[in-house]
């Protein structure tokens, strides 16, 4: 097992066909129990993602995008009310695994996770190099020496100077700490990496640098990214596909080529219209009102109360309609 993980690192020469599915999520529900009622954080989410593609999950705070990532990774709090559906990774249904098996076989080996603000969560009393190597030692049983050697390799890949591995977290700048975290996610060579707002706390130039590294890694290695962010402009740096969430639902899932030019769902359109752009002059819009509460969300389309294009049918919940040129949108306007 250890050997395979190490030899897999080499650059991938043949490109697998894009039709090969790595991750398939079907009817995923994650509800939380609170004192006020049941919060439907992720409601009936389905999508699939091809190998070596990268998916950007966009949405405002509270739309369920982080809950979705945590559901895929089964990093759940105690107050889970419902957790159901299908998550198939590489042909294996993860929902059928018990927790211990999932922890051993999936986390780090198959999926690694870069949580939000992870760079501030590095252990202050351990050297950065050890922390990067640790998943290999713990999860794959690799010897310390070998793990350190591999840590140097991944540090080079993410652009972290090798001598920084002997330093402590407080001796590194924010950008370098974020690189260390990404190195840690890469070290076990998992096919899927979930990045939750990987650059949101960083400066513009550092952000551009990290995005460059992530693109570089994607070109050289066999990785699939799920990038969770609310920053639409930055998401376009990495995305092949875009999934927009609103109030716990997927409202649009489109190829990036089309999405950034012509989003289809009214919410996605409004969201794009509110993004300030540097180079072109445009009249910015904002979306009046607020997302609905996820405790007893309204029946029908959840965006309808704020939607400029609503009509009678919106009182009924729309299914996901297939769009011309690929992708789906959850809106009655797409019905034919």
């Amino acid at each position, binding site marked *: 097992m250890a050997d395979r993980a190490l030899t897999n690192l080499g650059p991938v020469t043949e490109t697998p066909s894009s039709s090969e599915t790595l991750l398939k999520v079907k009817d995923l529900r994650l509800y939380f129990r609170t004192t006020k009622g049941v919060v439907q954080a992720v409601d009936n989410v389905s999508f699939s993602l091809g190998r070596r593609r990268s998916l950007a999950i966009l949405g405002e705070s509270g739309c369920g995008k982080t809950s979705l990532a945590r559901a895929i990774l089964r990093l759940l709090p105690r107050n889970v009310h419902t957790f159901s559906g299908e998550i198939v990774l590489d042909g294996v249904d993860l929902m059928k695994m018990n927790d211990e098996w999932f922890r051993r076989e999936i986390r780090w080996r198959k999926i690694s996770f870069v949580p939000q603000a992870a760079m501030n969560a590095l252990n202050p009393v351990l050297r950065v190099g050890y922390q990067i190597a640790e998943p290999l030692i713990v999860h794959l049983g690799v010897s310390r020496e070998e793990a350190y050697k591999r840590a140097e390799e991944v540090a080079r890949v993410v652009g972290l100077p090798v001598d920084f591995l002997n330093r402590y977290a407080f001796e590194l700048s924010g950008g370098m700490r974020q690189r260390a975290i990404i190195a840690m996610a890469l070290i076990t060579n998992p096919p899927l990496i979930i990045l939750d707002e990987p650059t949101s706390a960083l400066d513009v130039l550092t952000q*551009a640098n990290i995005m460059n590294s992530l693109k570089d890694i994607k070109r050289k290695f066999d990785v699939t990214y799920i990038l969770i962010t609310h920053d639409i402009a930055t998401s376009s740096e990495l995305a092949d596909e875009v999934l927009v969430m609103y109030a716990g639902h997927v409202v649009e899932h489109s190829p990036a080529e089309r999405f950034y030019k012509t989003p289809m769902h009214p919410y996605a359109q409004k969201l794009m219209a509110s993004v300030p752009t540097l*180079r072109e002059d445009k009249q910015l819009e904002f979306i009046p009102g*607020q997302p609905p509460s996820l405790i007893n969300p309204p029946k029908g389309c959840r965006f309808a109360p704020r939607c400029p294009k609503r009509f009678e049918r919106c009182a009924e919940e729309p299914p996901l309609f297939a769009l011309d040129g690929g992708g789906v949108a959850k809106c009655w306007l797409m019905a034919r």
Partner: protein
Amino acid sequence: MLENGVLLSVKDLHTWYELRKFGFIRAGYVRALDGVSFDLRYGEALTIVGESGSGKTTLLKTILGLVPPTKGTLEFAGRRVDAKNLDWLRRQVGYVQQDPYGALPPFMNVRRILLEPMIINKVGRPEEREARIREVLEEVRLVPVEDFLPKFPHMLSGGQQQRLVIARALVLRPKLIVADEPVSMLDASVRVEILDLLRRVQRAHNLGVIYITHDLSTVRYFSERVFIMYAAKVVEKADVREIVRNPLHPYARALLAAIPDPDYENALRFKDVPPGEPPSLVNPPPGCRFHPRCTQMIPGVCDREVPPEFEPAPGHFVSCWLYK
């Protein structure tokens, strides 16, 4: 007072934080602000753009009198600001913080939060205060006012909290508003709303506004004049359209090039980003502070002498030897 006179005049402002070893031995200074000068007129909006650690927040804090300047002077409405008239200064400057939730006391309701500045500054009689609270709430569109008065900060959405912070900044009828990244914690769809509100308030009351941000793409929706800061100095001053069209300082160029517009093609190419990171402000590099990262560095000049301000085009100032 002249309506188009100078409201705030900052001259050669330096703010250095002292570093200490073992708590008492002087171990040098962090030069958080190193020689910044500008004038702000009544009713003018100014944006300061810079990365974290470039000194933009220190500039704000110095203007608010929260940290004393090490060197240089500050004049507000024609009066020199010093330790003695800080109360007078702060009555006329409203502060909009970055994180609205952190800036609002969780145990006070909306009414109390807006009342507090008037109590502290002994402004108005009780019924006048009550009327003023209603007035500002209507102005920031927290309506119907009656519904919002008894609410606590946690009962408001992020956008509403930021509106409340703006209302609090306005309640004493200030002449100047300083806003430190007022929208960086908010969702994209709300950002525009808040910037719009700030802009409207600024025009309605002829307020001076200093808007601090690291996000250049929001600037053009807010003000005309932009300063770009790097490592405690202002490196470029110009009109926002001019800067976007024709950035002169190599740092400004890099910064603009690094900002993506939503476009699928971004994913297909790498960005040209200068290597390295901003310098330490304890021992800043000699000469131009950007020279270690600059691709157009002139050896013997940029690494020796601090560039003065040049004006290659009218109204466009840049501190870079390339424009000598």
